[in-house]
């Protein structure tokens, strides 16, 4: 524990005013710690990492971290991150934001970055609710659950972020929880290491909004719920749909080998490098 804390402190900004904005017991801090340990474990230099977020409680993570940090507008971090990556492909670009930010207002950017296999890692902290604005329903709020804007129970179907990413073309998709923090860190490291679009969905607790409205109890109780309902992917593959009812799967959910966007674009640049510049200039001007 002490050793973990030392690692975390190495990556926090000492001059940034603490305490943070999160409620005591919030899972976002655990997700942040897991991310830090993943980056540390990969031996990445601080200067070579950019953390990009949108707006929301989760999206406040970057301000505390001693990396290149970009806190953007609501829903748009993936689009900003795309520009950062293409301007400096040497950077490891990690987007960290909430379920509302990435899947409601930012849903279009999410599916298109996955489709183009853009070389970024998205860490989606799924607390099933809009935390920052006070508990309105999000695209992941389960049917029948209460939210301040679903006072009679949620009637919309929800997104499964991991399935959405896979269907859109992501080449690495994983899910973890803030209870399984060590595994979460490992999944994040795997995601960050790879080229192409990777998603790590983090099941987290918002006891202040979601938990309170749905009577799911304290932070501890909600995190224990994760322990009780998570099924490792290796185990789940041997279970029937009936056995999996009401549970969710954690671990690596999807992997595909495809070159990332940057590698593909670089091939075009290289083609021009090799060709006769003089001739190309003329072709382009007249064409």
């Amino acid at each position: 524990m002490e050793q973990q804390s030392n690692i975390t402190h190495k990556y926090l900004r000492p001059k940034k005013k603490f305490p943070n904005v999160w409620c005591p017991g919030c899972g976002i801090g655990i997700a942040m710690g897991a991310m830090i340990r993943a980056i540390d474990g990969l031996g990445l230099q601080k200067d070579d990492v950019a953390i990009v977020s949108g707006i929301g409680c989760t999206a406040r993570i970057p301000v505390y971290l001693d990396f290149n940090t970009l806190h953007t507008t609501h829903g748009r971090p993936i689009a900003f991150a795309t520009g950062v990556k293409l301007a400096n492909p040497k950077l490891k670009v990690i987007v960290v934001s909430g379920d509302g930010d990435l899947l409601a207002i930012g849903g279009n950017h999410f599916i298109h970055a996955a489709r183009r296999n853009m070389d970024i890692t998205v860490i989606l902290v799924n607390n099933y609710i809009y935390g920052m604005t006070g508990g309105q329903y999000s695209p992941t709020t389960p049917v029948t659950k209460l939210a301040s804007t679903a006072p009679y129970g949620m009637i919309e179907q929800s997104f499964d972020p991991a399935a959405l990413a896979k269907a859109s073309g992501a080449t690495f998709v994983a899910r973890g929880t803030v209870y399984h923090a060590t595994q979460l860190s490992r999944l994040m490291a795997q995601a960050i290491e790879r080229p192409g679009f990777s998603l790590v969905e983090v099941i987290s607790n918002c006891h202040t909004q979601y938990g309170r409205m749905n009577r799911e109890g304290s932070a501890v109780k909600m995190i224990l719920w994760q322990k009780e309902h998570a099924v490792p992917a290796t185990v789940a593959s041997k279970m029937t749909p009936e056995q999996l009812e009401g549970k969710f799967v954690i671990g690596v959910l999807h992997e595909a080998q495809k070159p990332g966007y940057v590698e593909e674009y670089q091939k075009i640049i290289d083609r021009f490098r090799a060709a006769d510049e003089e001739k190309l200039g003329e072709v382009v001007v007249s064409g």
Partner: protein
Amino acid sequence: MSETVKLYKSNQPLLMQGNEACGWGALAAGCRFFAGYPITPSTEIAELLARNLPRVGGYFIQMEDEIASIAAIIGASVAGSKSMTATSGPGYSLMQENLGYAYMAEVPIVVVNVQRGGPSTGLPTKVSQADTMQAKWGTHGDYYPIVLAPSSVKECFDMTIKAFNMAEQYRVPVTVLTDEVLGHMREIVILPEPSAVKVLNRPRPVDPPEWYKHFEITPDYLSPMASFGEGYRFHLTGLTHDESGFPTAKPNEIKAKLDKLKLKITRHREQITEIRSDMMEDAHIMVFAYGSTARAARQAIRMARKKRFKVGMVQPYTIWPFPDDKIAPLLENVDTVVVPELNQGQIIGEIERLSRRHVKVVPLQRYDGELITPSQIVDVIKEEHA
């Protein structure tokens, strides 16, 4: 390697569109990243850059919408690439929130808005100047935009370069406001070699990272700018922030930030603004026109002079900030100003403000998708002269 690439045939006549000239201007200015979404009448800019950016080692990407396009160019600029997007009314509207982000986070970017008729989808293939006020007030909050208005194909080239230079110098988004006619018309131009183009880059930090403040309030309000990946590890946010970039709720820091956004522009208004005046020495009537309307105005004053009318013309190349100090003295000597515009009256408000009722201000507004003709302007001059 980019130095050795022959971008275009320089120093010889080329027949080219305004949109193409914007694209070549961007490349000559050092643009190495473009993100955009197709929209008439701006698309040729994106197409030219899709073909040519990889030749200079730069990136082009067609994003899923205009919101993503401007987000991507802001991200790219933060990571060190000079970046641009191009669009028209509907896309420019979608860009407004992130344009505000770039004002707040002081990120240099260039946006070309090739104006078409509005509101809404309006007239995709017809000319308009109805985004003049949107270019000033489009996003929420207080901020001080720089907006340039070319009136010929060559000026599209020159002003795109100037837009990059000013974006870098002042760390602001700069809009190049052209229109459907300028974007699509072809003229013979002679372009300089890219190496002969005056290119300015963002002021770079001299302090070591421990001392660096991304939004340092300097005597001229312009702060040096490091890029991601260079060891400075700064924080950017659209929240109101202190000099280091961290969010603040302290009244003195909030005010200092908003003052900085204002003063970095208003203190440099003299260098930023540019106008052209023609035949104003003895003029009683001024025609005040910008963009493609200025072309008709130039023709009109020649025609009117032949009829011995004492008329001149003033054309702002910078429409925001409005060149008050350059235009006000010229208003002293005239009785009447004619303001032709392709909208229901936008820039005319600025002339009315400056003339303070001492001068008669006469509108000439057309918003039927067609250009104002020189003879329409001459007719108004004739009437005012009588």
